[in-house]
């Protein structure tokens, strides 16, 4: 298993540009998450999904959109990039077991985004 993969690893955007951060997991996990990590800070949840077709906002959703058409993929869309979105973005996944959310998240390697 490759686990959780993210592309690209690094990207520079101009203000107002759009882009999609890709996230794929091959562990058949129900739950998927997008976090951002600003310098010197912990992770903040942007959006999460409990299964294909179901998404919900996290702590910092403004300026982002997500979709979950398949179990494997959970892309994050930035429509109008702003300097405040300069950050490192992590995708994560976890499974559902015996009716309880699996407590361990598996993280991707991250995407570093710079908006100038």
């Amino acid at each position, binding site marked *: 298993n490759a686990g959780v993969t993210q592309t690209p690893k690094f990207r520079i955007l101009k203000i107002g540009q759009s882009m999609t951060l890709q996230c794929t997991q091959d562990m058949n996990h129900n739950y998927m998450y997008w976090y951002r990590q600003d310098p010197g800070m*912990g992770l903040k949840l942007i959006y999460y999904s409990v299964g294909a077709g179901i998404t919900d906002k996290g702590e910092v959703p403004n300026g982002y959109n997500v979709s979950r058409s398949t179990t494997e993929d959970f892309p994050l869309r930035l429509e109008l990039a702003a300097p405040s979105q300069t950050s490192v973005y992590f995708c994560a996944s976890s499974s559902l077991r015996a009716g309880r959310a699996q407590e361990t998240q598996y993280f991707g390697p991250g995407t570093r985004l710079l908006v100038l």
Partner: protein
Amino acid sequence: AQTVTQSQPEMSVQEAETVTLSCTYDTSESDYYLFWYKQPPSRQMILVIRQEAYKQQNATENRFSVNFQKAAKSFSLKISDSQLGDAAMYFCAYRSALLGNQFYFGTGTSLTVIP
């Protein structure tokens, strides 16, 4: 929302020595999980150890162990026989046991291992 506090932005330890990283959290829930994640310069988040709140026994993973004090809402990480590869940012995290609930992360502790 739950909060997770790591009061030590930076720590250092001599190689082969022991170091303890502190974490406190605030919650009104009784059923939850706690985690320590390691983030090396590669930026990838790596699970170090986890603790279920309903278990009184402290979790242990090789050189890593925790001191879980539920009443005090404290969850410290002890690294024994520190190695150069232990140098990284360490994040404490909380997750409710409820379905679909999110993780809450602390701001991290940067650990330096001195040869």
